[in-house]
């Protein structure tokens, strides 16, 4: 390296000790705050051996909690998928009154505490709530029952798919759809053959995050759940109950499921982000110029 090049390098990069401090600080922080606790979950779960770990899953209440979690996510995720695609389609492709309000409202669950959303459902559907008595007349119990859990889960996971798709669909515009329609395609064909392939990775990404949140939600479901074991306890609530009983191996064994789900989500998310990036690159490649009337 010539003297000039050396000087240039020195002038364009920070001194080595600045880089070293910043890099090691961030690594240390992530290790201490994120990786270590996650490792502890698995360490504690297997501390008394694999057989004790597996025994935790034999429990009837544990199986019930896992089923409840899968049920809540199984209903909330598809519903929010349909809603998310519909809302982002409406926002990206049409102009209508109240569009700004709709965008703001979609973000509402992000803005308010999950506990509040649980309480809101009690106020609406609870026995003393607005609709509780009326629903009871039809023998429907929402709060402290499965429907309440599902509703609370839908509420907190509401924005995930829509939030992911709105910017993606806005960026893509509606020219391809118009092209399909001008070629004689009907609405369904246009959606299925043109729109959906263009947003499929975004949809998967949204579903992945939505599912992770649906399965991991604690605050909102804890308010509307009866907290009866083997009743309407979801996995996070069950873990909390086990831990409060000082049954830490069982608690960590259950927690390891959610932690694994988190790791899988993270891997899937990274892969999908790469796909999404490729996709937006390929759309950027097409030459564009200004100037239409």
């Amino acid at each position: 390296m010539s003297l000039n090049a050396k000087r240039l390098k020195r002038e364009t990069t920070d001194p080595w000790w600045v880089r070293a401090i910043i890099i090691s600080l961030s690594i240390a922080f992530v290790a201490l705050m994120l990786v270590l606790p996650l490792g502890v979950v698995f360490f504690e779960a297997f501390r008394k051996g694999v057989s004790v770990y597996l025994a935790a899953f034999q429990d009837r209440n544990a199986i019930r909690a896992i089923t409840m979690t899968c049920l809540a996510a199984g209903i909330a995720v598809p519903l929010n998928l349909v809603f998310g695609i519909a809302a982002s389609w409406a926002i990206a492709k049409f102009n209508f009154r109240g569009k700004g309000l709709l965008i703001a409202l979609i973000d509402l669950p992000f803005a308010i505490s999950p506990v509040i959303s649980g309480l809101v459902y009690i106020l609406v559907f609870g026995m003393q709530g607005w609709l509780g008595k009326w629903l009871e007349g039809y023998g429907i119990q929402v709060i402290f029952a499965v429907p309440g859990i599902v509703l609370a889960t839908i509420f907190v996971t509401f924005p995930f798919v829509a939030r992911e798709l709105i910017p993606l669909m806005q960026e893509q515009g509606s020219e391809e759809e118009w092209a399909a329609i001008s070629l004689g395609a009907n609405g369904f064909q246009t959606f299925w053959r043109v729109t959906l392939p263009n947003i499929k990775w975004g949809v998967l990404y949204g579903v992945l995050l939505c599912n992770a949140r649906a399965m991991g939600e604690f605050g909102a479901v804890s308010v509307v759940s009866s907290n009866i074991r083997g009743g309407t306890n979801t996995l996070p609530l069950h873990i909390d109950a086990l831990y409060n009983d000082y049954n830490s191996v069982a608690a960590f064994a259950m927690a390891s499921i959610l932690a694994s789900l988190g790791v899988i989500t993270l891997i899937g998310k990274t892969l999908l982000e790469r796909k999404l990036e490729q996709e937006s690159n390929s759309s950027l490649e097409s030459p564009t110029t200004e100037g239409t009337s």
Partner: protein
Amino acid sequence: MSIEIQNISKSFGAFTALKDISLKIENGELVSLLGPSGSGKTTLLRVIAGMESPDPNPNSHVLFFGEDVANKPVGDRKVGFVFQHYALFKHMSVFENIAFGLRVRPRSQRPSESNIRDKVNSLLKLIQLEGFGTRFPRQLSGGQRQRVALARALAIEPQVLLLDEPFGALDAKVRKGLRDWLRGLHDELNTTTILVTHDQEEALEVSDRVVVMNQAKIEQVGAPAEVFHHPASEFVIDFLGNVNVFQGRINQGQAVLDNLRVRLSDPSIPDGEQAKVYVRPNDISIDRVPQGLSSMAAQVTRINRAGVQAKLSLELDNKEEIRVDISMDQLSELNLQLGDAVFVHPNKARVFVPDYTI
């Protein structure tokens, strides 16, 4: 197919895109809608295609072969629409892009797989992209993509081709080649074609008729030579190419500035009115000595020899700049150098008096 547009208006909120437009396009014509950004030309094209609905008005109609298509959705109008940015289906191969219009037909009207293959292959041949069927749009150049977009539109055998700034995103050389190719294709297929463009050269070169639009209205409709040589308004003469503008005053039936006098065809315009005199750069001759009364003294400030003609910039005595195009032969004959004093003489001028447009 003949297309007739009657009293069409379209506004988007407070913005008026089209103001009471009427236009008739004959069967087999290639017509350009020419105008600057925001003149309404693309909106007019989208109204014809059915992608925008005109403002409700009982007198406004869009007629295809005399039949009102107001209630026909885009897909039933049998229009081949080509978008400025191609709008190719990114995730489909070139083959599937072109086959799309055939594949989405109801089962009873859908051609067989082998018919689709033959049709697409013949279209690939037409656009000179044989062997490109398996490629994806991102693997093509801009000009190739636009040809695929055209083939895709042609696959449904449209009665009318609507092209929205089809060459706007391409570089000059490709644009020129595609323009000539499009004209040939139009003649070969015998379709009716409407082309939206803001490039006056493109419009004048390729079309049978040019519709010049400005601010939601049609300024002039006519054959290219007609709009070029007999512009109907200041806007048209200004938009159709380089032009010198001089401010003058009316005096005894003539527009006067310094010692330049242009006779008016309408002598009734009162004296003292402001007049704008438009002179195209090739309608001005240059001499070393004054030629008649209308010659104006000027100084050569710039000579550009790159081109078929030499482009000169000169400065008049009143410091106004004037552009003149002369042939290379004449340039060497006059042996002009920067700073030379010369005399310029307009051979042809158009005068527009506000409110008294002639």
